[in-house]
């Protein structure tokens, strides 16, 4: 890369300042505050606080509720990412085959992305609410005992579906672009080489769109971790009996509802560490197997 030389010695810093300021205000400052908070213990009225070292951390990590939340988060994130990506990929391959009305079909599939998470959550809540939801009614009619307000697994299923639904559009968009970038002649060559359409997909197309899949894996995991608060809050509120209480939801719940600021901050710090580790692992190990054409 070429080095730009500025005649003015102040200008480069000025140009950099907004970016740096934003990063400091919205990331480093809250992060350091969380770190600081996580070592304090505050009384419920917020009048005085004292330094307790790592006590918040040991408390959090020793708490069975917290470990349950870790399990819930893993199940929720993996299910959401896999479901959202698999469905989006399926829809994108189907969209490739559409001859007439391709543009219309694509536009319709992109719309859900414009729906805010909480609204998406409400939509699903209304559709599947055991007392008034249309689908809940249909399910019960079909003889299925549907009650996500009492059944933890059903509640989990509901938030996973709602969260995935929201993310499908985004994934769809990327998969469509990726599929279009696979040269048609490669698929034709494979057809002449005797590969069935399923085989062509798994041996040619899928490996070639792997960079996109990898990118989406990172994005979807981060989404499931952090951006699904609104959906969970609207649909289940973390219940029943904490069956859908993800780590992020628990941070909110402990901090703002139960007013355990120290514990909540400690959880935030752990969460931060998890995300850093997760991203590092993904880039280090998964990316190595991805072929960038």
């Amino acid at each position, binding site marked *: 890369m070429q080095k730009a030389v500025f005649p003015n010695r102040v200008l480069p810093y000025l140009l950099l300042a907004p970016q740096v300021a934003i990063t400091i205000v919205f990331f480093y400052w809250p992060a350091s505050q969380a770190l600081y908070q996580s070592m304090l213990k505050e009384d419920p009225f917020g009048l005085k606080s004292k330094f307790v070292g790592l006590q918040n951390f040991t408390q959090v990590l020793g708490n069975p509720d917290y470990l349950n939340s870790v399990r819930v988060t893993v199940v929720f994130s993996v299910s959401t990412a896999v479901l959202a990506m698999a469905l989006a990929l399926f829809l994108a391959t189907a969209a490739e085959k559409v001859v007439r009305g391709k543009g219309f079909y694509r536009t319709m599939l992109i719309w859900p992305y414009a729906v805010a998470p909480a609204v998406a959550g409400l939509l699903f809540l209304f559709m599947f609410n055991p007392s008034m939801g249309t689908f809940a009614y249909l399910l019960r009619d079909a003889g299925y005992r549907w009650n996500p307000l009492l059944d933890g697994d059903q509640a989990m299923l509901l938030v996973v579906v709602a969260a995935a639904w929201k993310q499908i559009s985004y994934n769809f968009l990327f998969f469509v672009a990726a599929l279009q970038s696979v040269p048609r002649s490669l698929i034709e060559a494979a057809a002449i080489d005797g590969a069935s359409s399923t085989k062509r997909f798994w041996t040619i197309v899928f490996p*070639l769109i792997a960079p996109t899949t990898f990118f989406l894996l990172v994005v979807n995991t981060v989404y499931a971790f952090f951006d699904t608060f609104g959906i969970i809050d609207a649909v289940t509120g973390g219940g029943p009996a904490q069956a859908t209480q993800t780590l992020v939801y628990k941070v909110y719940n402990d901090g703002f509802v139960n007013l355990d600021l120290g514990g909540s901050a400690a959880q935030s710090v752990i969460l931060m560490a998890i995300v850093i580790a997760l991203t590092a692992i993904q880039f280090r190990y998964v990316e190595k197997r991805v072929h960038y054409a």
Partner: protein
Amino acid sequence: MAKIELKDVRKVYHGGVEAVKGVSLSVEDGAFVVLVGPSGCGKSTLLRMVAGLESISSGTIAIGDRVVNELEPAERDIAMVFQNYALYPHMTVRKNLEYGLKNRKMASGEIARRVDEAAKMLEIGALLDRRPGQLSGGQRQRVAMGRALVREPAAFLFDEPLSNLDAKLRVQMRAEIRRLQRRLKTTSLYVTHDQLEAMTLADTLVVLNAGRIEQAGSPMEVYERPASLFVATFIGSPAMNLLPLGAGGIAGLTAPDGLLSGAGPAKTLGIRPEHMRLADGEAPRPGEMRFDLTVTGVEVVGAESFVYGTLPEGGPEVAVRVAGYSHVEPGTRLAAAADPAYLHRFDRETGRRI
């Protein structure tokens, strides 16, 4: 080994473009047939219909003695070499070669034997563990050839396989393809817009224009007796000189009696540059045509030069081939001569040869 038979094949694309307008063609077993024509004339479309990559709007295509209209590409027993090679970028060269054989559940011993043989034939043995991205254009081309060879198909289809190579490599690969085909005697259908490639490779040359066959025949037949004005100008470089014949003959051209008589339909005469010579200062020979030219330019190729000149009164420009290096100044008036035996006559209305 098989014969390819096309009967009145048509292709109409969605939106009504008629790319191929009734082509009948028979490619004999073991023959090398080259389809040549200008861009957009439907060459690729025709080839892709044979391959099964494009549906056939009407007519039939048979490979061997099977009509293949409804068969999948894989069931047609053909192999194709694409212009951009279409190698699988995420597989090694070996995997690329094996792919089509593995899909056909061939025994691994046989696969290894074929890959080794093809690698030897194309001298790509050292490249087997590389990926296409790590190969030069010429090497990729060889691998693409190899992928077709290992299949040992009934027919090879080539769609401008050399057009992404530089001039020198193209000549080399051209010779190599010819040599391989002679040796394997596999029926081949080859598409190109390069007339030199077409002339040197073909057993049978098929000239396509706007979705129709203009002429089919051996390269020399097509060159020496072009069936139409289109073929006359398309094959040969520089193109054949064309002289529209008016009622009073052609200004600046003197010809033996009766040669330019205007009986019958309006005509265009044609004569190739190499059948003309500069005849300045010579006395006219009996029975020869003489052209009175004003030189407009000289093109020196190396072993030969082409002198371009125009006939008087705004007449057409003609090219004259001169052996070696010619140093005629533009603006000079010159005489050129030609033997009427080499003259071609075309009906100006229909463009057909008379």
